[in-house]
């Protein structure tokens, strides 16, 4: 079936300082087509749709909407031309009611009473019941998304952009959403659907454009491809197998059994029965798409989230109910992902930051007083060993670039001589050379007999450093498998393929 063309994107390039978000991206969408934009995190999907919605302007390239040049300078213009967008986050006002939220997203909203009636009518028509007078703050995640969708539908869009719409939905809600989207598509509304959930895309989308590192690497018809094939396209096949010394594994240093914790993060993913062990000298790599429980796993391991004592064991000693300081004493250090605010206190100096996590293990206190000379020595050691580019140890952490701060923070944890090291996103935002040196020191620590857990969304990195490999999927961890001999096919399936079955299980 050939459809008349609605939107054509040609040669779009957008660069931010230090990173090219999109490079020469081209694709087209027909009227009533459900088109998937597929890619890993950071592949440039969100930047692309922000350009279509007028939030970001491309550096070069052209877009045409129904044959006419399309250069929206602001979202209002995009909306006027029939392009609507449902955001993943950040576009609802909790203290306002549904009707007010809808009105804010419209160009010329009718009077409130009329609007409320229309919201009721449209929400019934598309099977998304919604009460216009309720406060958005009281709604569930799925209901909030309905508000966004209805806000778009009231403006009669020709193209509806959906940015990872199912990331916060329950399986039942996903079914309802898909029914609505199919209905829209049959009425002639094109949908640009962003996701990295392969099975969803196979069941919903007509065409798919696959992005990797800002470039279009393939276009395909999802129904004709397997999830495995698309996963390969998404992550790229050219993965070099790194050289790694094989050391004999020691005894188990970190044991986690049937760890389930509620997520403290709004819209977070709770951990469900996570079990694994890491031996001395072993690196366990944990992959997974962002938001599948990585942050929660780090919190549960670092001690910020507590569980029953025997759920987490360091060198056989139960620490599940201990806080971070006691776990550090027991020999477990952890480095969270968020550098500014979680891993480091941004406005404190590097010396002070060095003390904050290393004080316990490096014995930097004397009779309750901070040993500033010793702390400074330690900070200087980190700076020298990890090539941190800074005028000195007394500058505020905030003043360092992300990559440099990351090197400092990695050094701080890796140089404490801990038996168990847990790191979330060790090389996020770090340039290639520094990333290589961080990975090397992770391997060195393992070589010295530490058990290391590396949580990352960078598959290449995990394959390079880890001895065993597992995937976090919706808060569940797959059984760790030896990295050696693992193929991209298998990884792709571990990451996305098995989803459907597990979810169906979980519903019943």
């Amino acid at each position, binding site marked *: 079936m050939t459809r008349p063309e609605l939107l054509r994107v040609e040669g779009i390039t957008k660069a931010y300082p230090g990173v090219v978000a999109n490079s020469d991206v081209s694709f087209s969408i027909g009227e009533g087509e459900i088109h998937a934009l597929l890619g890993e995190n950071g592949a440039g999907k969100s930047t692309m749709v922000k350009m279509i919605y*007028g*939030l970001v302007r491309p550096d070069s390239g052209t877009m045409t909407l129904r044959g006419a040049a399309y250069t929206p300078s*602001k979202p209002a213009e995009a909306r006027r031309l029939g392009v609507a967008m449902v955001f993943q986050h950040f576009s609802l*006002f*909790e203290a306002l009611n549904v009707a007010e939220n809808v009105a804010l997203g419209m160009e010329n*909203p009718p009077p409130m009473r009329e609007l409320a009636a229309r919201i009721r009518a449209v929400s019934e028509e598309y099977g998304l019941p919604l009460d216009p007078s309720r406060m958005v703050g009281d709604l569930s995640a799925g209901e909030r998304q309905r508000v966004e969708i209805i806000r778009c539908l009231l403006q009669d869009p020709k193209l509806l952009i959906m940015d990872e719409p199912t990331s916060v939905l329950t399986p039942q809600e996903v079914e309802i959403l898909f029914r609505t989207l199919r209905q829209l598509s049959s009425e002639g509304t094109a949908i640009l659907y962003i996701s990295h959930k392969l099975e969803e895309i196979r069941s919903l989308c007509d065409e798919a454009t696959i992005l990797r590192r800002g470039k279009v690497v393939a276009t395909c018809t999802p129904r004709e491809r397997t999830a495995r094939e698309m996963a390969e396209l998404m992550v790229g096949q050219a993965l070099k197998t790194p050289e790694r010394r094989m050391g004999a594994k020691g005894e188990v240093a970190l044991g986690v059994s049937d760890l389930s914790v509620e997520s403290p993060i709004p819209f977070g993913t709770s951990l469900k029965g996570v079990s694994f062990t890491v031996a001395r000298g072993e690196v366990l790599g944990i992959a997974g798409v962002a938001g599948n429980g990585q942050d929660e796993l780090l919190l549960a391991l670092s001690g910020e989230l507590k569980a029953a004592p025997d759920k987490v064991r360091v060198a056989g000693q139960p620490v599940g109910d201990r806080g971070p300081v006691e776990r550090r004493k027991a020999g477990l250090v952890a480095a969270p992902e968020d550098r500014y605010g979680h891993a480091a206190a941004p406005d404190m100096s590097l010396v002070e930051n060095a003390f904050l996590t290393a004080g316990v293990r490096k014995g930097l206190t004397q009779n309750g007083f901070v040993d500033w000379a010793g702390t400074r020595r330690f900070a200087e050691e980190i700076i020298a060993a990890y090539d941190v580019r800074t005028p000195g140890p007394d500058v505020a952490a905030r003043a360092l670039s992300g990559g440099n701060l990351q090197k400092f923070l990695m050094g701080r944890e890796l140089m404490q001589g801990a038996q168990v090291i847990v790191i979330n996103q060790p090389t996020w935002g770090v340039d290639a050379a520094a990333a290589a040196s961080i990975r090397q020191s992770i391997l060195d620590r393992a070589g010295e007999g530490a058990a290391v857990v590396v949580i990352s969304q960078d598959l290449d990195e995990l394959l390079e450093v880890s001895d065993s490999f597992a995937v976090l999927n919706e808060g569940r961890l797959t059984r760790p498998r030896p990295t050696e001999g693992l193929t991209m096919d298998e990884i792709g399936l571990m990451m996305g393929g098995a989803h459907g079955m597990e979810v169906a299980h979980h519903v019943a």
Partner: protein
Amino acid sequence: MDLGGINPVILIATLMASAVPILLAALGETVVERAGVLNLGVEGMMIFGALGGFIVAVHSGSPVLGFIGGAVCGALLSLIFAALTQVFLANQVATGLALTLFGLGVSSLGGQGYNGIKPPPTGKLFPQALTDLPVVGPIVFGHDWVVYFSIAMTAVLWWVLKSTRVGLIIRAVGESHEAAHALGYKVNRIRLACIAFGGAMAGMGGAYVSLARVPQWVDGITAGAGWIALAIVVFASWKPWRVLIGAYLFGGITVLQLNLQVAGSAIPVEYLSMAPYLITILVLVIMSAGRKASGAPAALGQNFHASR
């Protein structure tokens, strides 16, 4: 009709006038805070407006021009705050405090030479015949135009914030600047306009002190009215009509305690003087307690920088 030497009709009539400076300033700050900006410089903007309005009125001979001048001065001073917090992303609390100190100092300097001068009087709006009516005369008809203006502004702001698109956008910006930005609203520009409006209202409130209440120029003439206005905004849960109640309560008790002092009450003067502050806060706390949400704008006091 006298109660212990105090005539309730006169009392009500006086409190309506005495509440005007606080009411105007608090209404302006309500809009500013609803847009998510905490401007603690109300006192500074008021006194700057008090001096500016006084100077304009004295030189032009027109009290109306004086009030406009006061509003313009307040708005100008608030633009310093706006530039620092919205453009340079300075901390709002520190900047607001600095603005107060700056306003107090500048007005003290600029007011040299204006001591002891009488400004042109602001007359009553209605003719003598209406003003002389019993009871309703002084209360309903016995005021200058600014009193009516302040009540009208309460109604207008209530309506604007509740029912108009402009009000909805202001509330949206104060609730979640990120969401507002994602929908394409110019967060910092909207906030800038709200800050300027708040400055104008505070300046006009200040001008009412120096042109109608006192009326002359004295150093430190606003005497903390700006701080009370700030407190009233919070305890009134950012709602215009409650702001009016709070301002009238404060004005009323201020007038009452002065009258009690004059009437030679047995209560020591110190207690009488602190009563307005104490009772106003107490009543508003009771009013705002017991509801689950405080009603504070969620993004209050947070700067916004469009990074994406």
